[in-house]
């Protein structure tokens, strides 16, 4: 099985690690070889959290620049920052709800224009699926389910070797019981949003 390489970038607290865990557990359920790595040194202190997930027969758990097949960004400026991981065949999925870093508030940086950001990513990659995951998460019942919305969108693209059913099964068994219904709803909303965009 040829490797498929997925990068997820997020801001600390957005639930990237739970999304990665659900993906890993899904792969285990489906008997798809998977290796993952995460850097979250100061995640709880406002930094960036990056997960790399490699499906298939590769041994490496990290992904070099230009070698991601799929990039999922939980925050638009972080999606743009991770563009170095992409190539012209990469499929990019991004949340469009910004979380401007504090450096913007103190005037030591300008938050990129969202239209410019989208056209840049579109021009450089195979496909961009951009959605307001925050709005969909709120629709699902909790803003914290942004991760499940984006997971739904990711699975809809068919770019990673996991079925919707497997992932939903992993959500049922590996996320907190009290949130399962909400997470599944968020997943479905992300999935159908992506199918309308795709």
């Amino acid at each position, binding site marked *: 099985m040829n490797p498929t390489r997925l990068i997820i970038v997020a801001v600390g607290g957005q639930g990237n690690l739970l999304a990665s*865990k659900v993906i*890993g557990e899904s792969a285990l359920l489906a008997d798809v070889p998977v290796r993952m*790595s995460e850097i979250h040194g100061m995640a709880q202190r406002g930094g960036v959290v990056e997960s790399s997930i490699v499906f298939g027969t590769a041994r490496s758990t990290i992904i070099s620049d230009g070698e991601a097949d799929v990039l999922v960004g939980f925050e638009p400026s972080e999606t743009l920052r991770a563009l170095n991981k992409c190539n*012209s065949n990469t499929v990019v999925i991004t949340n469009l709800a910004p979380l401007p870093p504090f450096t913007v508030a103190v005037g030591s*940086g300008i938050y990129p224009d969202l239209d410019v950001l989208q056209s840049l990513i579109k021009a450089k990659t195979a496909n961009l699926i951009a959605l307001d995951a925050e709005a969909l998460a709120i629709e699902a019942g909790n803003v914290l389910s942004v991760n499940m919305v984006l997971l739904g969108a990711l699975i809809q693209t068919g770019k990673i070797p996991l079925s919707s059913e497997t992932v939903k099964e992993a959500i049922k068994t590996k996320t907190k019981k009290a949130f399962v219904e909400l997470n599944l709803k968020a997943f479905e909303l992300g999935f159908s949003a992506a199918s309308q965009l795709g």
Partner: protein
Amino acid sequence: MHKLLAANPGQKMLLLGNEAIARGAIESGVAVATTYPGTPSSEISLNFFQISQESDLYFEYSTNEKVALEVAAAAANSGVRSMCVMKHVGMNVAADALMTLAYLGVKGGLVILTADDPFMFSSQNEQDNRYYSKLAGLPMLEPSSAQEAKDMVAFAFDLSEKLQQPVIYRTTTRINHSTEVVVLGDIQTPITQGDFIKDPFNYVTVPAVSRNLHVKLLEKLETAETISETSEYNFFSGDGPWGIVCNGVSYNYVSDAVKDLDIAHKVKIFRVGFSHPMPRVLIKDFLKECEKVLVVEEGEPFMEETIKAFAQEEGLTLPINGKRNDLFSRLYEYNPALVRQCLATYFDVTCKPAAGVNLSDVPEIPQRPPSLCAGCSHRATFYAVNKATEGMETICPTDIGCYTLGFMPPLSAGDFLICMGASVGTSCGFSKVTDKKVISFIGDSTFFHSGIPGLINAVFNNHNFTLVILDNGITAMTGHQHHPGVDMKALSMEGYAHVSIEEIVKAVGVPHVSVIRPYRVKKSIESIKEALNFKGVSVVISKEGCTLFAKALKKPRGRSFFVSEKCKDHRDCINELACPAFFIEDNRVKIDPALCSGCTVCAQICPEHAILPLKDDA
């Protein structure tokens, strides 16, 4: 039940490398585990701590790595299987114990885990701790995957008991923080009770004893080498003329690169997992079969130098390379593309570099550096110090913890940092040879770890500086581990005492001690000014709980604040405090009520008193 205690051999489980290591220890019947927390090793001890709550495992967060190793060393010399876990720089602290423990050896298995951090994701240096195995004369193991990380722990315990020596178990961040599917094994029931048999002429390391023990150490090292020769963790594959020797994560990158470059038929790969002592005969035989050899190892040329020495012993003149300007660097961590490129360069095969996208027209993206949390008490303390030292020329040695982040503007509180506890020792030196006011920062856990000797030194030698102890009641940076100053009763944890920082400071004879509550801004500034005016050693203990920990404990928090119409846009709140709860909207300062912890500090410093609490339910 804790998931790592599940007694279901053969089950597949998705595990973080650190979880796999903890499971490996449980499967090996570990009975005593000690640590001082440090990334990237922290999750190992977090799991041990949780497991100790529901099993016979004795686990402790020791005050520092040296103490942790001493506790484990005694347990192991009483015949009890023990494990001591630390990050790479922790090994420097434990090294004094390590070097002579290597002379004594152990009875029960002792595994000492060092988690190295190439690229310094969360460390102050990227030292290569493999050299500790050479320095101490101890066997060392290095896994390449999560499965191996688990399995190797069991091997390490057996090896330790066979050799009657501690075994160094070395990981890197990418092993600790990678997640893979791991097949579980059987759990051995731990033997928790041991006995120590007096044998002073083998245990009391006076010179006459140690001279004999050093002989024994070298004998054990020779035995270790014979085991290394036949260890399943030193293996090779392929039969081409090009040789590659690799270890740890490098083995993964090499395996993928060989496939990607389609050179599998041309290379032999030697994976070293039992990396000290290196398997001399195996390596020499391998060299004899190769035209040229590339050594792939992150960090220092540890294997490369040894392999070159082996070649010299055999009179072999084939090229052996690794660290070279056009090949591998001693810097940072490697990645698949880098290893692929170096293999292609060395063996002269074509390599299509990944077609990355052109980034030249991507606008500069605002940085997102980690920062002190919204409402963090350290920010309040630094603000008070900045106010109290206005107009003064200062030097601010700082220390290791969340508060290190205070060195960033606008707080700019932190001028010098080398290692745990050094804020105090370096303050002595700065105050002696400069005329500037020295005011230094250390956290509560770091103070217990290694700040106290420096403070005693300062008192005895009559130095002149102010030490601010930032006491947020927990080891915050590494994920909220407890330390001797933590009120364990408040956490509903039984069986612990409490050590008061204030009492220690007074007991060592600090002549000027004050305690502040940093959320009370004016009072804090006054107290700090007073301490600064004192000639001699003064200590300010700034006490306020970690806001992130309070959130984790679901403690009730203060009401969120908002910026009212009274705001005249001075922006002192943003420019001097820089709490991440602030943001700018329509060119006005606003507060994110979801982030605001209600610490009230910004409200106290606003010149217009424009920052006000939100009404209930707002």
